[in-house]
């Protein structure tokens, strides 16, 4: 029985937070590593656990042999769960069963994985199947009280939006969240990694795809007509020019969709 600090109402039970982690890939060496956003998600979970708000458990769908799991564990986890999967399996159904089985109150994960499809779709699919709301790109969970979490969403250019979300929910963690703490070798080695046999379902669709290295997207050129160093500095540090867009709040869904469609045509994304 953990003693609760007096600041917490005594009827407030601890919530169960589940963090899903994946095996990341270092951009320079292509070697396995702790995925950056997933590390941030674990950091967020540990932080909430440190504040006595949640019980944290961390789960990975894949192979239990990866040394990277020890790097996650080295952040201060005494145990982790691995849903045993083969290469090329679809993690969705295994995850779904596990989340239901664990009766988690909310789910944290990175916005997108660093390997594989990296489509960022898994949290959306999970949320859809669970019937939970999805909170995209969060920077911080400020508080959880009476079944409602106060969350800061990360917006471009360092902006934040505060939202209140009722549990349960799925949240994806943005790069703006606190960076993952250093991993320690000893605790990581000693952590208990529990392997759970899970449904293995080959991802049929993905198995028929052809993979090739992505090409870098072409960037719009910035034409700098600077005459002096000060101008060049201004051009380099200026905010991206805004003003071209418009905010649509009260329009109907069709109007909003049309606006997006027109914009994509204008940008020649679809032809």
């Amino acid at each position: 029985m953990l003693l609760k600090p007096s600041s917490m109402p005594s009827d407030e039970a601890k919530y169960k937070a589940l963090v899903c982690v994946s095996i990341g890939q270092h951009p320079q060496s292509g070697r396995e590593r702790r995925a950056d956003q997933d590390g941030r998600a674990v950091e967020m979970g540990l932080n909430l656990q440190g504040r006595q708000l949640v019980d944290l458990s961390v789960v990975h769908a894949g192979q239990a042999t990866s040394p990277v799991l020890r790097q996650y564990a080295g952040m201060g986890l005494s145990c982790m769960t691995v849903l045993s999967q083969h290469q090329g399996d679809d993690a969705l159904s295994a995850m779904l069963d596990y989340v239901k089985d664990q009766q988690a109150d909310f789910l944290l994960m990175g916005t997108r994985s660093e390997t594989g499809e990296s489509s960022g779709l898994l949290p959306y699919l999970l949320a859809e199947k669970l019937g939970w709301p999805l909170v995209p790109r969060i920077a911080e969970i400020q508080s959880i009280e009476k079944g409602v979490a106060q969350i800061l969403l990360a917006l471009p250019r360092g902006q934040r939006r505060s939202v209140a979300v009722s549990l349960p929910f799925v949240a994806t963690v943005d790069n703006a969240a606190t960076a993952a703490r250093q991993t320690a070798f000893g605790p990581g080695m000693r952590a208990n990694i529990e392997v759970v046999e899970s449904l293995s379902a080959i991802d049929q669709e993905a198995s028929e795809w052809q993979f090739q290295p992505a090409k870098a997207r072409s960037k719009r050129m910035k034409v700098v007509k600077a005459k002096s160093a000060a101008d060049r500095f201004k051009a380099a540090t200026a905010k991206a020019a805004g003003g071209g867009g418009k905010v649509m709040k009260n329009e109907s869904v069709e109007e909003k969709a049309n606006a997006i469609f027109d914009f994509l045509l204008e940008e020649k994304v679809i032809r």
Partner: protein
Amino acid sequence: MILDWLLPTLIATLILLAGIGAIRRANLWRAGQAEKVDILAGLMAMPKRYLHDLHHVVERDKYMSRTHVATGGGFVLAMVLVVLVHLLEINSQILAWLLLAALVMMFCGAVFVFKRRLNPPSRLSKGPWMRLPKSLLTFSLTFFILTLPAAGILPDSFGLGEMGQILLGLVFGVLVLLSLGEMLFGMTWGGPMKHAFAGALHLAFHRRPERFGGGRSTGLKPADLGGDSHGVAKPEDFKWNQLLGFDACVQCGRCEAMCPAFAAGQPLNPKKLIQDMVVGLAGGTDEKYAGSAYPNVEVGKAVGSPTQVITEGLVSADTLWSCTTCRACVEECPMMIEHVDAIVDMRRFLTLEKGDTPNKGAEILENIIATDNPNGYAPGSRTHWAADQNLSVMKDVKKVDVLFWVSDGAFDMRSQRILRAFVKLLKAAKVDVAILGDEERDSGDVARRLGDDATFQSLAKRNLATLSQYEFNTIVTTDPHAFHCLRNEYQDFDEQGALQEVEVLHHTTFLNRLMEQGKLSVAEFMGGKVTYHDPCYLGRYNGEYESPRALLSGLGIEVAEMERSGYRSRCCGGGGGAPITDIPGERRIADMRMEEVVATGAELVAVGCQQCTAMLEGVVEPRPQVRDIAEIMADQLVEGAA
């Protein structure tokens, strides 16, 4: 006569108390971890180690070495004779006269100790140490007078009446109690004389016996991986003979005078650190410490016990991270204490167990793990610097005379100039050389100094696996840190014998050989006054002071030596992960070093290390130019002459 029974009783009692104290003290050391030591061989070797190795270091301060020989030698001799003459009461005038002579010698020494304590330098500890010369003088005088009757100079019982005898007995009883108490009781119960007892045993059971007899042992000991804890968390996690080593400290402060971090005002003072370790092993606080504090850290607040985590109340983590592992303190310590071992042991706990490496430490370690180099560059770009160099790669040639270990300078544009210069010299000397190319990995030096022995060992094993596939006679490198790892630290992991029969050389040694063989010819250097900065990892760690100087003199340069050079060279501040942990101080170590360069009036400082180059070039202009010896030589190379 009262003295007839009082004196033997006092001596016997104090010897007995000293014996009890010795057992108590030994039990404090035994709280440490087991370490195999050849007890008998150690004890047999101890006198020679004391007379030769220890005094070789003390000898650097002529005043003190003579003083110590007279005082210490006089005391040991006198003590043996006091037991014979006054305790066992052997009636022999010869012994008594010998005792008088020993006491005179001791008295002369003690006078010089007294003089030194009149206006002591700041590095010396005060407190009980200020009492010591008085105790020494009292001891020698008291026993001199007490021995006069035995030597037949004065009549028995000093020719006094009964009252006089009682008075004399009481006065001398008190004097004997005070002085002999200091010498015997204090030796094992923790007074200044403790250094004699612990020091002698420390010499006998030293953890690095290779250091005696002119040897060198500088490679760190491997950490045991996979247990319930890593590194040293609590004083009892040290090996027992490390604890004994801490206890041997005489608080002479020579380490303090040499420590670059202390001079820079960072919160480290090697002497205080060792004294804090003593507090830790004996339990208590540092209130009684009477020497210089850690810069800007108040004395009296530290609390420790053998079972308490060191960084939770005894020593702040910043103190441990301030060290550049330059070994200046170890080199200077007359008691041959191993400060750097202790610091890295404690760092191992912070990194491997706590995940608490300060500043950029975590990022650097993560990079090393993911990319095999500290800055996280693409491993596939390791050989880009040599795109135009036409160097053979080991993978293709398999067998070569000389393997050039490039080290992580490959990723740094400034260091690449050194690499190119060295390659130019190699080609001019027609050396059969190859590099590992992309198969090379970081040597693990930084990871190891930051306490991450797991990563170091993994790198060492993988590098050795690579090396074991190829045949070569020599490894040469321009990086003293990699040189030290390959030469002194990889052997602990070299199961395949990849480095057996292989000579590991620093590029200055290698170039010096080429010069001696007449394979290189250089024109005289005309660029003005030059000084040379000894890299710690080349000099103190590997004893190479001569080759760089020989090369410079071969260029016709008369090196304008800095005040701190050779084995007393001051660190540039770039070692031991110090630039990564970057603990704030009042000054930068590199700036202090550059001031010393400027003081020689040199326009150019020659170095033999890329870290030193980076650190010294980081000093604000105007300042002397900084160039590696390879660069200076490459510029003076006369092509086609050899």
